[in-house]
């Protein structure tokens, strides 16, 4: 079949402005997008730059957008993308600095962020003979997380990264999970602190896009939530968001519904004068709209006692 590839181009040695090149290629029914690209580079235009390594879906190196859908060129069958028209658009992933054509900056996009979570196990140097005895269920969970291809599709789907490129992103935080939940890691609390730093787990907005995008079903969003939970459990709650969670739960437990005034104050921290000052305009607006009556009282809701019991039961079970 005859396919026209319309490929994103950028040449850092010329004006660096993006453009597009069109290539008409004869391919067989079984061909993949990567087959098409290799043929173009070999026979039509040897200046075209794109990456590929394993060429059969193991490694994530050839991630790109095919007709705007982020996927792997090596497993993307051309026939699946040309049902409506014999044209295929190829672009680099979104929101990432492009170096040349389809080659983008993996370092800035993912590798450097992974390095930032100190992605190594701190082994117990004293354990000598024989393997650690560990249940397969724990290991199976780690194997699932470590099936990660480092393909970046979760980062590409993330809704925080387009507004804050410095956010560590779901791929790096999923890597952090692998250590946080590995019983052999001796860095424990210290590692949670890394993930908890600015641009870490608290900046995730739980939109679940990362989990939607992950081709391996690793559920990066749920992994981030698990790290947060663990941070809470070991008492890392001095962060604003952690305070937010604690206050949220305490308010609902006591009154059966959310006390927004208390939430705002406790989230900022009662000793954080600067933070509290920032709340003043919001409080004034709320008062003006009658949302915060004076004196400020937060009455219990009907059924609040039952809600409290649910909380207490949950707390007992956790213990």
């Amino acid at each position, binding site marked *: 079949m005859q396919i026209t590839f319309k490929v994103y181009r950028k040449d850092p040695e010329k004006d660096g402005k993006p453009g597009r090149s069109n290539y008409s290629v004869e391919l067989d029914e079984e061909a993949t997008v990567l087959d098409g690209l290799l043929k173009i580079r070999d026979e039509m235009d*040897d200046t075209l730059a794109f990456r590929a390594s394993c*060429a059969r*879906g193991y490694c994530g190196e050839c991630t790109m957008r095919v007709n705007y859908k982020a996927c792997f060129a090596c497993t993307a069958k051309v026939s699946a993308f040309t049902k409506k028209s014999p044209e295929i658009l190829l672009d680099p992933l979104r929101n990432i600095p492009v170096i040349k054509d389809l080659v983008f900056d993996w370092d800035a996009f993912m590798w450097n962020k992974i390095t930032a979570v100190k992605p190594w196990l701190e082994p117990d140097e004293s354990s000598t003979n024989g393997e650690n005895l560990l249940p397969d269920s*724990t290991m199976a969970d*780690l194997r699932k997380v470590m099936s990660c291809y480092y393909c970046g599709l979760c980062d590409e789907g993330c809704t925080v990264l387009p507004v804050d490129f410095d956010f560590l992103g779901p791929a790096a935080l999923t890597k952090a999970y692998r250590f946080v939940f590995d019983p052999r*890691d001796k860095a424990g609390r210290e590692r949670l602190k890394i993930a908890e730093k600015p641009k870490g787990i608290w900046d995730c907005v739980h939109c679940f896009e990362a989990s939607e995008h992950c081709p*391996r079903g690793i559920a990066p969003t749920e992994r981030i939530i698990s790290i947060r939970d663990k941070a809470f459990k070991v008492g890392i709650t001095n962060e604003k968001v952690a305070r937010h969670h604690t206050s949220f739960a305490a308010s609902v437990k006591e009154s059966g519904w959310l006390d927004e005034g208390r939430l705002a104050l406790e989230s900022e921290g009662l000793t954080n004068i600067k933070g509290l000052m920032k709340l003043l305009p919001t409080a004034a607006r709320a008062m003006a709209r009658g949302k915060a009556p004076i004196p400020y009282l937060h009455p219990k809701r009907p059924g609040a006692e039952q809600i409290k019991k649910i909380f207490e039961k949950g707390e007992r079970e956790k213990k």
Partner: protein
Amino acid sequence: MQAFDVLVIGGGASGLRAAIAVKGAGASVALITKVHPLRTNSGLAQGGLNAPLGKDDSAEKFAEDTLAAGDDLCERDIVRAFAQEASRDVIWLEHVGVPFNRSAEGRIDLRQFGSNSRSRTCYTDDRTGHIVLQVLHEQFERLQIPSFEEWFVTSLAVDGSACVGAVALGLRSGKLEPFTARAVILATGGFSRMYLPSTVSLGTTGDGQNLAFTAGARLMDMEMIQFHPTVFPKGQGLLISEATLREGAEIINEKGEPVLESKALTREKICLAMRQATQNGSGALSLDLRRIGKEKLASRFPQTLELAKTVAGIDVTKEPIPIRPVAHRPMGGIETDADGATSVPGMFAVGECACSGLNGAGRLAGNTLTEALVFGRKVGETATRHAKGAPVKGFPGSKLSDEEKRLAALTSGNFSGDSAGKIHSELGQLMNDKVGLVRDGAGLREALERIQSLKERHRKIKLSNSSRIYNYALTSALELGSMLNLAEAVALAAQARSESRGAHRRADFPERDDQNWRCHTVVSLAQGSPQVEKKPVAGGA
């Protein structure tokens, strides 16, 4: 100029393990790799890695199985030492974080794999390479070892007789730079891409073997190419782990009848049985994974299920997948001693690019990753010792400018019309047809003639892309040059060995000939031409 005690070239399992060992031994070290370490060929390994950890097992039994797979061409002392050390290195890997599958008691679970006579293969589902590679990379990062990723080594620097560094092209910067070192460790992987299809990643093109060979090192047992029996042969070729066989899968003929009488066979024997079946009119062969059962397939072979679907378009829980033997992994490579030293002082080699005689004429399934660990550690320690005693030598003055000229000639901007891809396709077909699973004298003669003409065409290649930044046309042309030189060495060694042994099958010499051929072949350059010699197997019987 970048300067280190030890330079490791290659970021797969062997290179990472070696770099960790060098750092541990107290020398300065850097790693250069043409693709990011987590994208290397090591990540494709599935079935697992061997260590004699079972109650019914021992280092002696492990050594026996390794020797049997090697069809009497292994270096026995090397095999015995390897079998002794394997468990320690695999346990180390567990300690630093590999989440191996576990038995009910929480121990590392062991699976039966290939012709291992015991359950001794440690595994992580069917993604062992991917996960082992990650853990090695984690420990590599822990030691903060400088890593030059997406740097392509174009040449080794030899001063007098010693290897003193390398020249590499930064794909991102587009700059050619010298790296000096007192010791260089090559860990550049195999060369099976000279066959099409094959089981390996695109960069498995034998660069390191060719760099070493042209710098004066010798290549050993190059005719020994392992074919893998259970490969979906379309497209690039998709390997289905042979571990599936021992877990219940069957190779079946067109009527659905099993083809193998036993599954505890070496890969060579399974491949030959498949060939025999096809010649006897079995029709197309396929692998029936349904016999493993859906649940076990999903829990132990998740990647196989996924890739069979995405790559081959086959749901293996519902139907068998077509297979045939496809080129997998060479046993031969850069000749080294037991510690990874080559015949060139200061040059070391490890992993799939090296040949110490561990694997002889055939490799035991599951030995390669263990080899990467054991020999990676050893070569790191040996190269460090060498580096500490070696004098600092200057980088040969004209080396960099010579390389500049060589690359400039390729990228002169006047497209020659011929392409690396076309020449590669022809080579891949030729190697399969004439230097494949079974060879003969006439075919090998023809192969050698045609390799010469492909080399001639390769010499004339000119690219229109004159940039150095991410110029993959340039690196492909260089890789093709390596494959052509090595293809010639493979065919020459195969032509010389007039017997059948292990992976080397000659239709015109079907018997094993211990009297004349219980020895290695060694190819070296003499006045610019490759020469084959015999080298005795050490240690006698």
